[in-house]
Structures are given as structure tokens and as C-alpha cells.
């Protein structure tokens, strides 16, 4: 079994117009910048993929990563908890112009919906958002006298993730707080694509240390010189 592919273009193959993409990361930690930019390259060369729905905690920062996807016109809808950032221009401009849709989800509910998608749980109840605008239209129920909101699972066609180590079977570790949503997204997507800073042979990761077991991973590409989004931001980088 060898899930590695030769390059970034092969890694992002098969992502089509209209798909739902989960993209790992919280702020810059865990953002798979190289995978995203490879997808932008394909869009620029072929006009596809477009009309994407992107699931991420945020909605892009500056002119790189998800923000650059939005700038390029690939994204029809964002599902996120916090569409603000140090430099939210890309999303803000499109949103105010009515050119991008937004589904705001409380962060814990977003995490749990993704986790449910991967775990085969179609719906669950949470106290979060009860009585607020974000619960409008959702079923509510009482348990032990306390009100809860019913939330639905969230799945994706493809997840794009950044890992620290991957073995060729797709077992993953992450670096510090770059873990965040990625293990959940790995399970919730039909196809999970991972850029790893280092790819090792099976046995190269201690079975106790595996955070995402390989069963959740479809393709792995090594990006040894991966850049951290926040570091790029501070250099004033733009991908255009």
C-alpha cells in the first residue's frame, strides 16, 4: 500500500466544480498552503474547479491560501465560524458585493458537525446557539428540562490537510496547534488529501503517536519546504 503521489498537481487531481472542500487549519496553523495554491494553479490553467463550498474555521487572510482562492473567484460559499482575520479583504469584498455566500456556524458546533460527518452520526443535540439567530429554523428538544438545538453532520467531497509526518499508508501526526480541525476533516471527506512535511515508511510513526489513522487518508504528497501561512502573511506575500 502506497498512498503517496508524485507532486502537488497529482495530489489535487479530481477536485471538480461545485464540490464541498474541507480545508484544515485555524488561522495559519495547519493551513495546507501548497495544496491550495496547486488548486489555484489548476483553476488558472483550466477554469476549474469553481463554485466550490469551502469549510474552514476562517475565511482567508491576506492574499494567500483560502483568501487567494476567493480572490480568484473559485469559491461560491464559505462555511466557517469566524470570517474575520488580520486582513479579511478577499472575503469581505466578495461578501459585500453579494458574490459569495456565508454560513456562520459556532466553532464548537462546526467541529462537532464535522466529527459527526466522519463518525456516521447524522444529527446530534447541542446547547450551543439555543435561543439565538443561529438556531433559527432548527429543531429543538428538551432533555432533563434543558433546551437543545438539533444540528446535522457535515461531510465533504475532499479534504485538504497539512500534516507533520505521514507514512505511506496515510498515518499522520500534526505539529502543535496545527492539529485543530484536521483529524475531524480527514474522517468527514470522501477523499482526503494530505501534504506532509515528511513522508516515512510504515513503522516510521509510533502506533501510539498516530493522530489520524491511515484509514481516513486517500493521498499523501511530501512538501518538505512547506510554508506557514502566518509567516507568509508577515512577509506580505500574495498568490495571484
Amino acid at each position, binding site marked *: 500500500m502506497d498512498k503517496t503521489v508524485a507532486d502537488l498537481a497529482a495530489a489535487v487531481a479530481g477536485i471538480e466544480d461545485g464540490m464541498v472542500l474541507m480545508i484544515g487549519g485555524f488561522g495559519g496553523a495547519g493551513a495546507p498552503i501548497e495544496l491550495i495554491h496547486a488548486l489555484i494553479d489548476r483553476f488558472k490553467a483550466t477554469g476549474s474547479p469553481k463554485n466550490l463550498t469551502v469549510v474552514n474555521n476562517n475565511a482567508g487572510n491576506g492574499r494567500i491560501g483560502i483568501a487567494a482562492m476567493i480572490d480568484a473567484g473559485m469559491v461560491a460559499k464559505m462555511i466557517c465560524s469566524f470570517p474575520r482575520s488580520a486582513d479579511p479583504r478577499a472575503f469581505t469584498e466578495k461578501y459585500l458585493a453579494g458574490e459569495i455566500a456565508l454560513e456562520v456556524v459556532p466553532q464548537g458546533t462546526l467541529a462537532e458537525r464535522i466529527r459527526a460527518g466522519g463518525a456516521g452520526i447524522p444529527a446530534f443535540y447541542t446547547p450551543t446557539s439555543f435561543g439565538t439567530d443561529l438556531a433559527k429554523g432548527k429543531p429543538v428538544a428538551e432533555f432533563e428540562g434543558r433546551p437543545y438545538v438539533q444540528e446535522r453532520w457535515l461531510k465533504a467531497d475532499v479534504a485538504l490537510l497539512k500534516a507533520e509526518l505521514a507514512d505511506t499508508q496515510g498515518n499522520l501526526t500534526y505539529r502543535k496547534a496545527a492539529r485543530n480541525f484536521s483529524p475531524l476533516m480527514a*474522517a468527514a471527506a470522501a477523499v482526503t488529501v494530505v501534504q506532509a512535511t515528511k513522508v516515512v515508511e510504515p513503522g516510521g510513526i509510533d502506533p501510539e503517536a498516530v493522530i489520524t489513522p491511515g484509514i481516513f487518508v486517500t493521498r499523501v504528497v511530501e512538501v518538505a519546504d512547506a510554508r506557514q501561512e502566518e509567516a507568509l502573511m508577515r512577509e506580505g506575500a500574495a498568490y495571484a
Partner: protein
Amino acid sequence: MTEKLSNAQIAWRAAQDIEDEAYVNLGIGFPEMVAKFQPPGRQAIFHTENGILNFGESPAAGEEDWDLINAGKKAVTLKPGAAFFNHADSFAMVRGGHLDVAILGAYEVAENGDLANWSTGPKGIPAVGGAMDLVHGAKRVAVITDHVTKDGRPKLVKHCTLPLTGLACVTRVYTSLAVIDIEGGRFVLREKLPGLSLEQLQAVTGAELVIAGTVADLVAPEVS
């Protein structure tokens, strides 16, 4: 009719349908034998409910590590690329549809794919384990079983009479006499022992066997 496949031969036949690199859960007991018969060149990755992916054979007697066991509480070993995880994550793999194949035993299988394999009725002590989760998780749920009960009654039936494990969940049954797919709520015969007539097979099957295309010979080598 005395000729039939041994349990090992049934397990061998089921193993031939497991693709290379498939993620597989084998039920405790008889289904565990399937792992032994993977064709050369294929390497499935085995999952056990209690939190291991990519475990291997039993260790030699005296070499057991009792913190390294499968769902049947038998000692196992690890292959390179193994991972440990907790029970919630383990059943996320199951329920979330991440396994390619689950192979389970059965008391009864109905022609609509209903499975009864966890309870022989109100007299015993009920014990379900992970079976009810497995039947709703794997992309393909297959059963391996003797074709009839010890006292000769059909295990492939029109309707299950024992408490159900899951509804319409089984898609293929490997028995001591035949290989049968469940399609459109019917038993479709794919393979039968060469020495067995269709009438003989139908006589020990509790619902109609449908013929759709070729019925191949069910042939298994001597294995144990």
C-alpha cells in the same frame, strides 16, 4: 449430501474476494480465520473494534502481550503502519463507512439481507458486542456460515425468526455449499459445489434461489 466445505474452506473462499489494500473487520470467532487465507500479493489492513488498525497474526505461545488483543480477546501482533485509537474513534471508522468489508457469522440471513447473529432468543444472556454497529458501517457486509444449522434447518431463510442484528445489511453469503448474493431482496446464486444439484441446494435453503447469469463451481483447496 455429506460433501460440504469446511469452515477453513469457507473462510478461504471469502478471503478471495477481499481486494488488495482493503480495510477489513472480521467478526470474532470463525470469521477471524479469513485473515489466514489472503491470496499472495494482496495485503488487507485489519481493524479491530477495541482500537487497533493493521494488526497481524497471533504471537507464539508465551510471547503474548495481553494489552495487545483483538475484539475476541486473543493476543495479536502489530504490522508496520499500525495505529492505536480509542473506542469512539474506532466506531467512527465503523459507523462512518470507512471500512471496505466486514465479514461476520450468522444464525440466520433473510433473502432481504436481514441478519440475525447476536441472540438465540430470550433464554440466554444477551450479548451483542460490535455486531450491530458493523452491519451498518462497512461498505460491504458479508456473512460466512454453514449452509444449515447443526440439526439441518436452513440458515438462509425467507424471514429471520431470531432477534435481528440489522435490517437489509448483508450483500453476500459464503456458505458450506454456495456463494449467494442478496440483490433486490432475493437470494441470487453465484456459485455452488459442483457435485450438488440446484434442487438439492434449494431443498436446504429457506427461500427461493434466483439464477441470474452463470452459476460457477464453488471450489476451494484443502486448507486448515
